[in-house]
């Protein structure tokens, strides 16, 4: 029976906006509530895929537990004793699938979209959820460009029973984007979403999906051993750094992908700081003998089960803010020790070294300022050298801004920094005159802040 024009639990049900394989999406509204709403109703007629019900139950368990700008706001739901539904905020903005008409997209657009989606995935993974169906139709944008992930019917929550995993032998998902381990039934690894995002970026950058559109599981499984055509072979204009990022996402082994979505977003926002490997220069697929050897001797794909949020904890983005003009060698050494301890046993962690060059708008473009900028970069590198961090694990940033604390805070917000380390100003007079940068940062930062100070005698 069509629901349109009915009133259910106070919600006026409007027309069907989308008919999916497992559910229908209706426009919905509530008197005295201007919020645009969406009502999702599962397909439950006899003969429908039983997965539709289980998938809907999964979404009913997950959605009320999600919050933040990167998911539709959950409003209400009803269970299976009457007509089941989920009512949520309707995201008006365009779906990424609409951009597929324009592919290949300019490189800057690909990077910006990739970073926005990686931000959304980072937020989701922090909330214990692996999406497992990242594809253009499931990514919408708010008017300010924030990416919103929708449809959690195939998702895995690492603190809830995974009904889909146990009840269906075959993996569900969208074959052009599905990660190799997902095709083998692994559902708990957040890096599966990074693979899907890589496939998506490949499509946006080249106009083609990396593995075609296989209709069957067997065809989809080719990606376990057959590498995709390098993006730059399909489109000359793609820079080496973008190919590096895309092919890293598309690595068969999750361990060779970016450790977290936040780190992927970081790379897409700082292309000049990406450590290029052989991936960046690859011009053709591996020869067939190499590919067949992989097929006959596949690499074991058994990622350790640590949970989505656990993976982020193991691979944080650390940032150290050093005011080299104010820092004695001794404090610089203490700071380095602190950072070394924090990087310690976490090979997935990365470090951003920041220096704020105070400048006013009038001074921009000045040659002397440029010289100082370069000098500060050199000094940051010199400071970090004893840490012996591999290229790609450490990056250097001289921020030009009038206010040091604001610049550091902006950086931490934009780059999803997990932990900031900074030195306390040693000179008490300048602290009194200028105020404490560390104090303001510690008070307002979106993450943990460690303020390092040399122990005073007496």
């Amino acid at each position: 029976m069509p629901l349109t024009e009915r009133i259910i639990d106070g919600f006026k049900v409007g027309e069907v906006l989308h008919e999916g394989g497992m559910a229908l999406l209706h426009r919905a509204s509530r008197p005295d509530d201007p919020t645009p709403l969406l009502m999702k109703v599962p397909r439950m007629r006899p003969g429908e895929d039983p997965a539709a019900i289980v998938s809907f139950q999964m979404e009913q368990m997950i959605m009320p537990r999600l919050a933040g700008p990167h998911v539709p706001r959950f409003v209400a739901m009803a269970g299976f004793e009457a007509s089941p539904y989920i009512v949520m905020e309707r995201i008006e903005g365009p779906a990424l699938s609409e951009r597929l008409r324009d592919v290949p997209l300019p490189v800057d657009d690909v990077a910006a979209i990739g970073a926005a989606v990686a931000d959304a995935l980072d937020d989701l993974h922090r909330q214990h959820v692996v999406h497992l169906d990242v594809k253009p139709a499931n990514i919408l944008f708010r008017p300010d460009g924030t990416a919103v992930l929708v449809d959690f019917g195939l998702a895995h929550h690492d603190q809830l029973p995974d009904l889909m995993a146990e009840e269906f032998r075959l993996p569900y998902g969208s074959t052009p984007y599905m990660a190799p381990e997902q095709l083998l039934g692994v559902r708990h690894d957040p890096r599966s979403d990074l693979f899907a995002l890589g496939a998506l970026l490949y499509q946006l950058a080249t106009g083609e999906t990396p593995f075609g559109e296989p209709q069957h599981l067997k065809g989809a499984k080719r990606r376990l051993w057959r590498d995709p055509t390098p993006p730059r072979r399909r489109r000359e204009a793609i820079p080496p750094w973008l190919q590096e990022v895309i092919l890293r996402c598309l690595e068969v082994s999750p361990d060779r992908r970016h450790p977290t979505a936040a780190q992927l977003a970081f790379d897409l926002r700082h292309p000049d700081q990406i450590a290029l490997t052989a991936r960046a220069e690859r011009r053709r697929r591996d020869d067939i003998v190499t590919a067949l050897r992989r097929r006959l001797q596949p690499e074991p794909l058994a990622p350790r089960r640590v949970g989505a949020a656990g993976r982020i904890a193991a691979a944080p983005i650390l940032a150290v803010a050093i005011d080299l003009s104010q820092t004695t060698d001794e404090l610089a050494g203490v700071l380095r020790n602190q950072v070394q301890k924090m990087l310690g046993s976490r090979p997935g962690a990365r470090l951003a070294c920041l220096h704020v060059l105070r400048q006013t708008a009038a001074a921009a473009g000045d040659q002397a300022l440029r010289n100082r900028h370069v000098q500060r970069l050199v000094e940051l590198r010199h400071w970090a050298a004893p840490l012996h961090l591999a290229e790609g694990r450490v990056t250097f940033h001289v921020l030009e801004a009038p206010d040091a604390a604001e610049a550091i805070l902006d950086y931490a917000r934009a780059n999803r920094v997990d932990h900031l380390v900074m030195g306390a100003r040693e000179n008490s007079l300048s602290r009194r005159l200028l105020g404490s940068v560390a104090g303001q940062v510690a008070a307002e930062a979106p993450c943990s802040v460690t303020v390092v100070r040399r122990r005073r005698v007496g």
Partner: protein
Amino acid sequence: MRLAVLADVHGNLEAFRACLDHARARGAERIILLGDLVGYGADPDAVVDTAMAEVAGGAVALLGNHDEAAIGTAGTGMNDLAALAIVWTRRRLSDAHRRFLTDLPLTHEQDGRLFVHADASAPGRWHYVQNAEAARRSIAATAAQATICGHVHRPALYSLGENDKMNAFAPVSGAAVPLARGRRWLAVMGAVGQPRDGNPAACYGMLDTARCDIAWQRVPYDIDAAASKIRAAGLPAGLADRLFLGR
């Protein structure tokens, strides 16, 4: 309403008190004691006293197999360690304690939820629900949308979907799991007084009937005190040692 469900206290007064305090501090409005108040631990009398006071204040208490053995006189059919502890426990209980335990029901039903110490398909036979097949048998035997039991000393959550498939899940402590309608659920509480899942912290369940979800809580308690009393009572030292290991 928030219900705190405490199973398998086993004479461990320190763990019992810690869980009751923890639950009250988190808004528990009703306490349900899921059986096995006694056996193994050194404070059966004080635990039963506490339980009697709770019941007088509105709590529900159910019978467990160790409670049944402790009020009986015959052989227990239990393993040596458990039987030894029961013989010791019998001497510690007063007539009032025995009367209280004798009157405990095997099951309690509330809003479509069934509370029981062990397998609900034969509550007095004390079968363990420790795998999906046992859970299916228990679920199939009743009409309850959710069954909450203990007896196993290890937290677990099972559910049965409309397509007749069972799902088994190891709960994450502190994370509430919705007992979604459209499925039937069987939740196994961990043990308050003798956890056996490798985590020595006391375990109980917090059921939120408005939100229809359940969370397994882990509560640290003074294991040293509970273990010393077991040793001082002359009970087997293994009963004290295992508390530190959660085995």
